[in-house]
């Protein structure tokens, strides 16, 4: 089975980046069409399409929009382009290759939820995507697609870019709102959910880049047409970022429900002489699958949940049999410890302990009871904090230790990696 280029149909064309080329290939047709519809009709169509958020949680987009209060209070649309989940690089592609596609999706979405102002919050390191999106916004203003009385509909909308400054936690929607407000990017307790009380305490819809871009296609093909791809509950296509030990890493668009093993093949398969050992199927926060599980997994929300993991952001991290799982877990515990915003004790302390324990094993100071200690610490971090980062840090640990316990035990006993044969210092430093 090959790719289905639905959102990415014209990504190979350089001209698709600019307004002229974008318009030549169907650009802004759906925005013009949508602004003649009733906002409720659009929301209804999005609900019926089954579109689920592509940023990580997979929540129904139409339902989220439906949580907005039914009044005329100002509301904001916030596009999440912080893309910090390790292994994920699809939003970057979308902003580089098709910034107008995102803007068009946002104009339609903003009209549907009656928002006069939106921000695209882009991670600060994305210098080039930021430039692409800024240029496209300028072009859209010049063409009258943003600003006053868009397409003569009487609808006004302003759009701007806000540039982040390096903090994974700003990808969490309430952390992002804090950051946009000019504060530390610390998440806020929910409820109230942003749709009720978000940016500047006003109702705010936060959606991922890929989610908002998809809205254009729901208008183009209708909910029924959109649902042609995917499974009953996981509709549409999805961009998967495949990285790690494959021959041709990259982004691939396929229908949801696509077999993971075929996705690995699309990415060129394993390197010669190497065997698949494990896959993290949905970004670093998703529990790892062993090779056997990976071979039967399909890339939809339901199947991955049934295997105890998740689709997340669609980042597929492929690990081959030359890799040491203790070492790989060390990179993850380091990441979460570094990125915890420190507000909640279980997360702040827990991420610190996990990292310390894994590194003590790596550095040859581990004890056998440390392996169970890892499980205990991780268990205590779940479901008790302001945001999901704490769970996201705990889940990989639990899956690595339970599925590859023998490697952890070997490392403790021998002070070196079972796979590499060497100790940590010899491994890469």
């Amino acid at each position: 089975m090959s790719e289905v280029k639905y959102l990415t149909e014209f990504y190979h064309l350089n001209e698709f980046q600019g307004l002229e080329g974008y318009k030549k290939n169907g650009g802004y047709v759906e925005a013009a069409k949508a602004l003649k519809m009733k906002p409720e009709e659009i929301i209804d169509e999005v609900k019926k399409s089954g579109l689920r958020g592509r940023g990580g949680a997979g929540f129904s987009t139409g339902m989220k929009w439906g949580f907005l209060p039914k009044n005329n209070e100002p509301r904001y649309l916030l596009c999440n382009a912080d893309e910090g989940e390790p292994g994920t690089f699809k939003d970057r592609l979308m902003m580089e290759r098709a910034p107008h596609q995102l803007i068009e999706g946002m104009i339609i979405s903003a009209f549907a939820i009656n928002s006069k102002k939106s921000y695209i919050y882009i991670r600060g390191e994305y210098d080039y995507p930021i430039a692409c999106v800024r240029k496209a916004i300028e072009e859209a203003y010049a063409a009258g697609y943003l600003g006053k009385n868009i397409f003569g509909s009487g609808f006004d909308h302003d759009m701007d870019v806000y540039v982040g400054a390096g903090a994974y936690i700003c990808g969490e929607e309430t952390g992002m709102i804090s950051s946009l407000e000019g504060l530390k990017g610390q998440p806020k307790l929910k409820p109230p959910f942003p749709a009720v009380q978000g940016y500047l305490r006003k109702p705010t819809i936060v959606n991922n880049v890929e989610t908002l871009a998809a809205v254009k296609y729901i208008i183009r093909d209708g909910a029924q047409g959109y649902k042609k791809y995917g499974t009953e509950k996981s509709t549409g296509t999805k961009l998967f970022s495949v990285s790690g030990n494959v021959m041709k890493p990259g982004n691939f668009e396929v229908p949801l429900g696509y077999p993971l093993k075929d996705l690995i093949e699309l990415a060129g398969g394993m390197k010669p002489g190497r065997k698949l050992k494990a896959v993290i199927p949905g970004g670093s926060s998703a529990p790892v699958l062993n090779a056997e599980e990976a071979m039967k997994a399909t890339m939809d929300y339901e199947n991955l949940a049934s295997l105890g993991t998740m689709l997340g952001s669609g980042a597929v991290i492929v690990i081959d049999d030359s890799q040491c799982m203790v070492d790989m877990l060390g990179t993850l515990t380091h990441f979460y410890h570094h990125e915890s915003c420190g507000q909640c004790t279980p997360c702040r302390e827990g991420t610190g302990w996990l990292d310390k324990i894994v590194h003590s094993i790596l550095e040859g100071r581990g004890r056998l009871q440390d392996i169970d200690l890892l499980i205990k610490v991780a268990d205590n971090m779940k479901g008790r904090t302001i945001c999901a980062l704490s769970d996201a840090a705990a889940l990989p640990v639990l899956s690595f230790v339970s599925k590859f316990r023998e490697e952890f035990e070997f490392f403790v006993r021998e002070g070196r990696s079972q796979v590499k044969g060497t100790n940590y210092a010899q491994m890469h430093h």
Partner: protein
Amino acid sequence: MFQLSSEGLQAVKKELSRYETKDSAIIPSLFIAQKENNGWVSKDVVDHLSKVMEIPESKINEVFKFYTMFNQKPVGKYHVQVCATISCALVGARELSSHLCHELKVKHNEVTEDGRFTISRVECLGSCGTAPMMQVNDRYYENLTNESAMNILRGLK
């Protein structure tokens, strides 16, 4: 004492009126000032921004310390940030950053004697499919080998 250039000052003023709240201008202004202060935010920078923005220092400090793109101490002319998170680690990113340190005779996060380079390991930069990679100041370099990375650094003016 640090002072913004007149263009820098104009840019900060523009940011101050750009968003719904004045505080939202703190991050963009810190970027502007950091660029004019050899890539880091000193106490001077915060003092000066506080004055021109009419925002308390404590507030600016809180923001700048939270975000990793603001450097709290001097860095080399070229700040070389190698992603060492999982996808990059799987294809030799840590070996790469160690190699660069070895070649440039410097430890991670320190400045080379000639003031040109700082090598750091950082977290995922969204370039996981083109790993190993490094960000040198604003620019990404991808699909690196130890040799190609070193050649790029040698080629910088």
